[in-house]
């Protein structure tokens, strides 16, 4: 499965690069109006590739929703091969319920992506400066753009220096993709790894199971211009998916004042500094603590005991594959929660512990043939929480989100600052990766035996026994709890996109019949 230079030229660069140096970005959500104009634009769009070289000062990426692909007019039997979750979309009611998109997150209230409001095409523009972004946009919006597309929404971003609106560093931990295919698929791993098989993100390559995720394959007859690469796992078939990935977009509005009000009150009540209270909710030290009017917190709360972004559990002694050699990365990511089995260093419910529990297939420390056999049969547990959480390596995503902040006028005329995250992630299997993390870990009120949702992302929807609270286990044994927890994050939009390889993009633009 070695990647050739041709593959790197085929992969959209966003898969390989986070574009930290491109501080300005804008995302266009578009509806297809004139197909031939759209095809013309798509076949000439200077989409950025994954080839390493001189850092570009701009980047362009294109992705399609299922509606968009259908409008573009691919063959129905080809499109039917896309997975169910992509075809039925983020707002299918059962899925929305599972993802927590109910009540205040109801897709019918979304600014975009809700029923009847799903964009066909997502065009992402990046540049080094706002001026360069404007120029780049002018350049991209060639004469066919206006006839091809109608704008559904244009999402701005701000260069927050990787600090999200609640004041925490974002995107500190990302899985490292195994580009070279060095790690063969394994069974029953016993230690956490930060390396993910390429197929976990890119279609057309083996995933963590050592299998190829299903994606549209076409017969050579359906690819008369021979645009598409061959399918590695299906002799005689061409691969529409190869070098493509699914992009999950969630437009998240963050209520930073409410979050910090909660932290303030909670810290005051618990008589501790709000730095550590906030750090407990996330699992890492905050980078910025806003000073609030009416602060009631006690103690020297702005004293920082840790560098922003550092985890609140102790670092492990052993190296973790895919962490380092960069010293910052080691300081921020060389840890698991294995030694914090009671959650006293980092609460079970802390955001980063939910989003990435950092475990392996078998509980860490399982040794020897007998030990493995015991574990495989479900024996040998030493703690009630032992072996409770699903293995992490099947549930990783590559995050590519950007922060935003802009001034807006509320209905009552007051000027407010709207803040939030244009959350984006890339994965090869939406239901096993993004949806699993969101549904089974983040908003699942029963994660790790708790009765509460993620302290940041929870929708606080009432569920039989769950309470809107945040629980922190204490060394004394008794948990410290703080409630009620308001809803700090509201979903304002979202959709599933397919971000094809460049060859597939040309193929789709060509509209073979």
């Amino acid at each position: 499965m070695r990647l050739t230079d041709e593959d790197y030229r085929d992969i959209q660069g966003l898969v390989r690069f986070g574009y930290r140096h491109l501080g300005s970005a804008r995302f266009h959500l578009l509806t297809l109006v004139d197909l031939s104009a759209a095809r013309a634009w798509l076949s000439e769009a200077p989409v950025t590739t994954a080839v390493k070289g001189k850092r570009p000062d701009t980047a362009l990426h294109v992705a399609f929703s299922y509606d968009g692909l259908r409008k573009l007019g691919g063959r129905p039997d080809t499109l039917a091969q896309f997975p169910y979750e992509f075809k039925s979309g983020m707002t299918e009611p059962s899925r929305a319920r599972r993802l927590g998109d109910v009540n205040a997150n109801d897709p019918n209230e979304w600014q975009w992506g809700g029923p009847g409001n799903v964009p066909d095409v997502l065009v992402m523009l990046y540049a080094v400066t706002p001026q360069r972004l404007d120029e780049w946009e002018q350049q991209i919006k060639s004469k066919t753009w206006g006839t091809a597309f109608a704008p559904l929404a244009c999402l701005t971003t701000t260069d927050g220096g990787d600090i999200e609106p609640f004041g925490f560093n974002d995107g500190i931990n990302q899985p490292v993709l195994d580009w070279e295919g060095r790690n063969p698929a394994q069974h029953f791993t016993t230690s956490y790894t930060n390396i993910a098989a390429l197929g976990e993100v890119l279609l057309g390559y083996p995933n963590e199971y050592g299998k190829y995720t299903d994606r549209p394959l076409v017969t050579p007859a359906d690819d008369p211009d021979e645009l598409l690469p061959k399918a590695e796992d299906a002799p005689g078939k061409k691969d529409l998916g190869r070098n493509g990935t699914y992009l999950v977009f969630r437009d998240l509005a963050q209520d930073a004042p409410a979050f910090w009000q909660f932290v303030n009150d909670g810290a005051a009540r618990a008589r501790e500094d709000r730095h550590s209270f906030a750090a407990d909710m996330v699992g890492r030290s905050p980078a910025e603590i806003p000073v609030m009017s009416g602060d009631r917190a006690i103690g020297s709360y702005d004293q920082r005991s840790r560098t922003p972004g550092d985890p609140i559990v102790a670092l492990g002694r052993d190296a973790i594959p895919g962490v380092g050699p960069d010293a910052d990365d080691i300081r921020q990511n060389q840890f698991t929660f294995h030694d914090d089995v009671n959650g006293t260093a980092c609460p079970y419910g802390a955001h980063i512990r939910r989003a990435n529990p950092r475990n392996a297939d078998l509980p860490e420390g399982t040794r020897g043939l007998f030990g493995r056999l015991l574990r495989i049969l479900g024996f040998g547990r030493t703690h009630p929480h032992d072996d409770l959480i699903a293995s992490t390596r099947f549930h990783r995503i590559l995050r590519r989100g950007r922060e935003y902040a802009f001034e807006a006028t509320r209905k009552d005329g007051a000027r407010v600052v709207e803040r939030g995250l244009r959350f984006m992630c890339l994965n090869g299997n939406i239901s096993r990766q993004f949806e699993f993390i969101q549904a089974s870990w983040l908003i699942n009120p029963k994660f790790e035996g708790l009765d509460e949702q993620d302290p940041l992302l929870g929708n606080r929807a009432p569920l039989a026994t769950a309470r809107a609270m945040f629980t922190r286990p204490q060394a004394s044994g008794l948990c410290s709890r703080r409630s009620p927890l308001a809803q700090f994050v509201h979903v304002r939009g979202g959709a599933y996109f397919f971000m094809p390889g460049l060859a597939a993009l040309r193929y789709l633009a060509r509209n073979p019949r």
Partner: protein
Amino acid sequence: MVVAPIVEARLTELRTLLGSMNDRPGTARPDNSIVPFGRFEKLHYARFVILDDQTLQDFEEYGAPIPDFSVVLAFLGDCDGPADDMLVEMARVAGSGLRQIFSFCRGFTDNTDLLAWMKDHSQAPAANYVNWVGRTVRQVREEARLRDELVACVMSRQDEFRLDDPPQIRAKLLEHCQPLLKDGRLRLSPEEPTPLGWRVRNVLHYAIVPAALLLPWLLAIPALDPLPSLFSPVVPLFGALAVLLFVFLVVHIPAALAFIVALGVMLVPLFILFPLPIAPTLVVVAVFLWVLRHFEKTEPEIIHRPEVSHILQLSSQEDYDVTNQFNALGSVKPSRFRRVLFVVILWVIDYFARHVFGRGHLGRIRTIHFARWVFLDGRRRMLFASNYDGSHEAYMDDFINKVGWALNLAFTCGLGYPRTQWIIKGGADDELKFKYTQRRHQKPTETWYRAYAGLTVYDLERNARVREGFERRTMTDAEVRAWLRDL
């Protein structure tokens, strides 16, 4: 489980009737007027499922004639005590509703004796799993109530408790609950004694495997006179080994399993003493493996992606609560070899589920409340039904990643299961093929009842720990801390 063929012309009408019991798609109102499940205090879970197999065309791909299975109605329940007692109570309390439902089944008339009919149509499971044998509905509810009370007390007195040491906190919590226990707002009923008959039957059932392991020794008795020369060095040696192994294993695994392993070790000296039967035994094993591999290699692998409309229907019933229901209906691969193998495998699963895994986990799976495998139509097809925690995707991932080998064992004889090797390899390792197959064979429930919404297996286990600690006379400091952690 009560199963009976439906008058197919009236299928839609029956669906409407069963659907009228629900307040959410697929979930029953506990006090619905047809079968008010909530009134049965010993009932954990119950459901009505219509079993109409939409995958029978797979037989054609297999190269076998398509069987003419009738559409059947299945009524499943998980209860405390004997199933027959539950049927009696159901017939008494919900007789008219049940009559109304079963009147859609062939041969059920106004004059049919409901109870006798239900017993006649009862189908015992080939394998059954209960997460915690002996945990009653009443216990679950009382313990949940106790923990809720303790947690509420902890939350309202956090500031005060911060200054106390753990034993003090525990004393205050116990004190807080005393008046509630006195006036009946909290109740902790003593455990009901296990009926003697059940215990005897259980021990006798357990004895089957140890007896089978001892049988070769019994057969060998005539040959032990005079004692073979190797007897005195070999048998005591292995006897001592078996005892040591048992003592070592029992620390890690249930005694029931350790004992079987130790007895297994005792078969080794028998083969040393009497090497003659080794050859025929090996031949039998080799022939079995050859036949198995032949079938595994030559049977066509029939995998289809489930229809979008089918998934939509199933998922519309899921994730309203932390628990969900699952029914999978399929056919046994049409060969005598597979039918016999399936029966043997399910017997083994049932045996170990009953005697080894009735304490909180099935293998590594800690999210199944109840599960059962039931043969239908003369062992030509099979229903698997379970009640589990979390979303469907998580349930399947749990299966694949934690007990893929056991999944292969349990379903390798099912038509449409991904190809396995040596029974336990392959199969569910092919994640997507497995997910397609199970989803395609899944049947929606018409109505489903759960006695304790919002409680997962983990919750039940933790609440039982809380109660146990609550009733303890003395505790070490470390135990008190561990107890407080559960609040």
